[in-house]
Structure formats: C-alpha cells, structure tokens
C-alpha cells in the first residue's frame, strides 16, 4: 500500500459547522491553488491534473464524496455542495477523474476486498489514472449491444474488440471496461465489468481530434489482451448492473449547473470587454439566461437534498441532466451570437485571462450527447415517469 503519510489527517471535516468548513476550504484554496489551475473555461488534464489532485490529497481535501474509511473526506451532501461552490468561486478549472467519480465508488459497493485494497489508495494518490471503456463504434446510445468479447482461458480473460470515446485514454494507466462474456437473448445479460492496465500488450490507443480541437477522446483497440479473471468487478455476466450501480453524487455531477455558471461568467465578461452589455439584445439574453440558470440551480439543490435523504430521485436526475446541459449550450450559443465577428475568431482577452468563445461553444456540444443523450433521457422519462404507452 502506498498511502501518502501526509493525508487523511483524521480530521472530520463533515463535523465542522457549514460556515467554518466553507471558510477553511476557501482559505486553503486562496493560499495553495496555483494560478494555472484557476482557468475555469479550460479543462485541466494529464500531468497537471494529477499534480493538482495530489496537492489536494496531501492537504486532506481529496475525494470529498468518498467515505473516510476509504481515505476520502466523507462529506455529506450539503458539505459537498459547499465544496463545489468554493471550487467554483475560486474559478478552478474543470477536471475529469474517472477513478474518483466512477471506479472508486463502484469498487466500494461491488468490488472485492482485494480490489479495494489494490486500487482505492492508488486512485487517491494519483498513481493510477483511470479511463472508461464503454462505448463502441456501433454501440453508442444502444450501449447494451456492445460486442467487444472476453473469452475465458484458464485464470484469464482474452479481450478482443474496439472501444471509442474513452476520454483521456492516452494519459490513463488503467481502464475499466464492459465486455461481452456470453451472447444471450437479453442483450444486457452476458456483459462483464473488468479492469485492465493500459500497458497490457495488445492495447492500442488512437486519439480522436474533436470539434474543439482537443484530443480528449480516444479509440482503444484490444487485440488478444490477456487480463486476470480476478480483475472482474461483481459477477461475470452482471457487468451491466455493475455499470449502472453509480447513483447519487456521480449522476448529480453530470447535471451540475457548474458549466453553465462558468459560461455565464464568460458571457458577462464578454459583454463588458466588447462593450455590448448595454445593448438590448445582450440585456434580453442575459436576463433570460440568468433566470433559467436560477431555476436549474434550484432543481440541482433540491435533487441533492433528496439524494442526501438516501432516496434515489432518478427522474429528477434525468430532468436535471437535460435542463443543465441544454442551458449550458444556450449560453454558449448566445455568446457566439452576441460576439459578432469575434465569435469565430475565438479568443477575446479578459483581464489577465481570456475567453475562448469557439472553444466554449464546442465544449458544450457533447454535453447533451454523453452520459445518455438528451433524447435518450426523454425516452426514459416518457416511459418511466410519464408512463406513456409504447404500443
């Protein structure tokens, strides 16, 4: 085990009064957060992201939602919201850490004792950096139709196939993926959740350039990749349920209004810098988007509270995802629209930083596609919540 001795000082942050917790975290961020992490419209990735998480880790601010027994901060929902609000206030760049948000909680729930011991500390200290292998070229929204195969051979599984949209796979040390271990009538059966090291022979990563010009997404090819059977999480053939076991904070996160808030701030700065905030079109769009953001924030808060009561507001989570991501898009559209010629040019200096209109506009596009597209969410809500007929 390689737990950094500086961390998990044993302090129970959740026991602090809200205002004190807020003040402590705010002060810490002010004192320790490096300047290059304070670029809210940018995504922090790779080595810099890992360094930032290590810094949080050394000072006991890592993995706020994880229980303390697993080395996290063990914060309850109201504190998690404060934590998030303070990150937002300090204008911290957006980060993606699939180990913290996805794999860790899954292992806590369904992993073996050995898997937890092996992986959880390494997620916390960033020795391991995880990516996800779910989607395939012909299995996007219809994920359960996935075809990447894993054949049992002695104590191992041999994986063959292709995954796509694996974010930051080129930087990852490990991958958690869904593979087909049997073909049965119900396509959700016969899927298995398995862990692999990216350095395993037979894995090839090919980055994909997206519309924002970044190479976040990757194609990952699996060619006779040998993985020990002890890397299966949950039971063989029950991987679909394992991948769906993430509820609560992980799903709340995807409907967080944070991206919208960042974009709204950028829109506000643009209005000032370009001298258009007094114009009627700007004022109208600004007022409308502000009001809508308020409503999304209220729904976010309420959904978080219901989650905190130990309930599973699955319909609210789906509605929140639709509302938050579509609002984020509308803000970036207004930005592009109002900025005139500056829109396609892109970068507009704002103080010591800049707003990249093009990049925000493009960053907002996939928000309504990943994590269950807006249309898939609507299909689900129409059946599950409104009970509309299928005929």
């Amino acid at each position: 085990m390689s737990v950094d001795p500086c961390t998990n000082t044993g302090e129970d942050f959740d026991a602090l009064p809200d205002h004190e917790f807020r003040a402590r975290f705010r002060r810490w961020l002010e004192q320790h957060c490096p300047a290059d992490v304070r670029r809210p419209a940018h995504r922090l990735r790779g080595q810099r992201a890992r360094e930032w998480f290590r810094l949080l880790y050394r000072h006991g601010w890592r993995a706020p939602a994880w229980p303390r027994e697993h080395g996290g901060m063990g914060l309850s929902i109201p504190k998690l919201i404060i934590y998030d609000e303070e990150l937002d206030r300090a204008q911290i760049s957006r980060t993606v850490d699939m180990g913290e948000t996805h794999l860790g909680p899954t292992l806590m729930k369904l992993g073996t004792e050995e898997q937890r011991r092996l992986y959880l500390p390494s997620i916390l200290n960033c020795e391991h950096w995880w990516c996800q292998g779910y989607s395939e070229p012909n299995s996007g929204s219809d994920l359960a139709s996935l075809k990447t195969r894993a054949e049992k051979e002695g104590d191992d599984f041999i994986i063959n196939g292709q995954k796509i949209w694996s974010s930051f796979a080129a930087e990852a040390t490990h991958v958690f993926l869904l593979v087909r271990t049997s073909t049965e009538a119900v396509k959700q059966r016969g899927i298995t959740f398995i862990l692999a090291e990216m350095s395993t022979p037979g894995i090839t990563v090919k980055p994909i350039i997206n519309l924002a010009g970044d190479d976040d997404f990757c194609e990952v090819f699996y060619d006779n990749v040998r993985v020990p059977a002890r890397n299966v999480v949950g039971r063989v053939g029950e991987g679909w349920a394992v991948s769906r076991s993430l509820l609560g904070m992980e799903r709340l996160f995807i409907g967080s209004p944070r991206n919208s808030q960042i974009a709204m701030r950028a829109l506000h700065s643009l209005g000032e810098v370009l001298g258009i905030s007094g114009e009627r079109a700007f004022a109208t769009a600004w007022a409308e988007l502000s009001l809508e953001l308020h409503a999304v924030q209220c729904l976010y808060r309420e959904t978080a509270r219901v989650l905190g009561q130990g309930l599973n507001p699955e319909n609210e989570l789906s509605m929140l995802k639709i509302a938050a991501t579509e609002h984020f898009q509308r803000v970036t559209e207004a930005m592009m629209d109002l900025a005139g010629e500056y829109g396609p040019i892109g970068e507009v200096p704002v103080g010591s930083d800049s707003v990249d209109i093009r990049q925000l506009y493009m960053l907002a596009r996939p928000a309504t596609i990943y994590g269950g597209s807006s249309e898939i969410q609507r299909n689900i809500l129409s059946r599950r919540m409104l009970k509309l007929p299928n005929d």
Partner: protein
Amino acid sequence: MGIMAAEASTVAGESGRMVRDGARGFVSAHHSMKRVRQVRTAEAGYSREVWTALAEAGWLGLRIPESLGGAGMGMAEVAALCDVFGEVLLPEPYIACGLIPCALLAGCANAPLRERLMHGVINGQQVLTVAWQEAPFHFHAGQCELTLSGEAESLRLHGGKRFVPAAVNADGYIVSVMHAGRFALVHVPASESASGITLHAHRLIDGSVCADLGFSDVKISASDILAEGEAARELIESAVGEATLAACAMLNAVADRALAIAVDYMGKRVQFGKHIGSFQALQHRAVDLAVRCALARAALNRALEEHAAGSTRAAADLSAAKAICSRTATLVTRSAIQLHGGIGYTDECDIGLYLKSALCHAAWLGGANAHGTRYMALRSAVEQPA
C-alpha cells in the same frame, strides 16, 4: 408533473400532507369542474356559499396565529393548500380575500379594528378585498398616490384603485393611501357605496371578476385606519409577497395538472391505430413540459425556504419564482392544448380552463416580465455568498 408534485413538495412535510388531504376532502365535497364554467355568469365570479363553506372548514385562517383564531401555519402549508385549489381551479378567491386581508388584520397595530373585523373575515361573513394597485404594470404594494385628506373627524378619500380582485359584492375594502405624507392602510366598508364609491367591473378570461374602484370624497372614520407609516408599508409588502408565493403555488398546480390531463389523454386517444402517446415527437414534448414543471417547482420551493428563513435573498428568489412559474404555467397549459389536438380547442374540454386560469394567475401580482426585471435588479445582492 402531478406524479412527482404530490411527493416532491417536501418543504411542508407532514403538516403539508395534512393540509393537502384536508383540502382534497373539502374540494370533493364542494367543488366540481362544472362550477368553473358556472362562475362565468355569477356576478361576483365565485360562489358566496362555497366561500362560507371554505371559511367554516377553517381554511381562511390557515396562516393566522392561533392566538387570533387561526391555525398558525406557515407559507409552506399555504402553498400546499394552493396546490389543491389550483389543480381543481377552485374559483373562490382564497388568496385575494383570505390570505391577504387576514395577514393585514393580523399584523396591524389597530387592535380594536382587528377585533371588529377578524372574526367575520375568518368566518366568511365579511368578505374583504385589498385595493392597492393604481396603474397597470405596477406591483409595488408599498407605493401609492391615492390621498386620504383631512383630519381625525373629517377624513375623506378621493381617487381610484385598479384591478381590485373579487371586488364585486365584497363587504369592504382595505385601501392603501397617502395620509399627511405618510403611507397608510384604511378599511372602507362597501355599504358606503351610496356615498361615493363607484365600481367598474372587468370579467377576466377565467370567469373571475376584478374591478376599478373610484372614491369620490368618501368619508372615512379614523378608527378604520389599520396601520400607518413604515409599519403599514412593511405590512402590505409582506402580505402581497406572501400572496405572490401562493400565486406561484397555484400556477404550479395548474401546470402540473394540465400536463397530467394531457398525458392521460395521450394514453387514450388512438390515431393511425396507435395511442398518440406512443409517438416519440409527442413524448418528447410532454417530457420537456415536465422538465419545465420540475424547474418551476424547485424555484418556488427555494423561494419558500428563503422566505421562511427571512434571508436577504428572499425578495430576489420570490421574483425569480413568480417569473418562472408564470412563464411555465402559460407554456405548459397552452402546449397541453396542442397535445390534445382539436378537442383541446373546445370549451367542452377541461384543458382550456387550465390555460385561462394560468393566464390570470400569471398576470396577477406582477407577470413574468415585471418580476424578471425585478429579479435582475435584486440578484446582485444574491450573487455573492457569505
């Protein structure tokens, strides 16, 4: 969506559930959708009999302290009550003639006047309505120009008020005035109409009635002054603020119920050999409306919470809620007509009644634009967390 609304309005908790159950019992005993059409020809726009029953069941004094003969409940319970009244389009003016006048009487410093009027108002024998608005688009209840002139024994009221809800057949009015340069609230009995009160009624699209009132040298007794100065201003602003929250609850209930009716219809109506509710285009429309309903409900719950806490952002959140709920209810109810198709355009079909109710509640106490503007002006105080 009604499906969640009943469960998700957790703000009031157990007491809210009790209010809701009790109100449902009242409604099933005294109300039917037929009445919503009948009141269109009723002079007052509602039934005085049902009003009395409403009073006798104790609903009018819900928010009044127990020491003054009420039930001592908060705005969350009032919102739960409006949830039930809104979903069945109860025509009786609970907010205008129950909630607001009761709040003014309960909070006023003139104890003898309170004693004289409160009992009758809670019992339903005296219907009071509050006249504070003087111009369209004006919803600052603490500002007015109508002047009460003269001294103690010779007080005279001269001027007018507009859009006074449920003014026809009211037994009296509580009127905001300027008296000797100070804001004040006075009680004006309607029996004085022989001596100088004129009433010009407007029938609203939902069948309710409001009126423009004219006062021509109406004699006022000094004992009828409820409150004066800053206290009077705070009193009416607070009462109208609470009424606005209640109106939001009505709007949400109207929207939720209209969507539930449309969704139900989509599961029954067959075209092209299929239930129209199985068509994805319609399903997605319905879901979008449900999302709007959930957002509006969350905005109201937030406003109720901040109101109860007396927080600095209460006023901004109230305006945000009224803007959002007004816009949502009109969007959802008119979309519900579209989801019905041709039948939705008939007077026979209930869905149109929901649109009409939404239009009235959306415009009353400041519409989406007015409150949206006010929210933008107030939100700067909100944006910076402590």
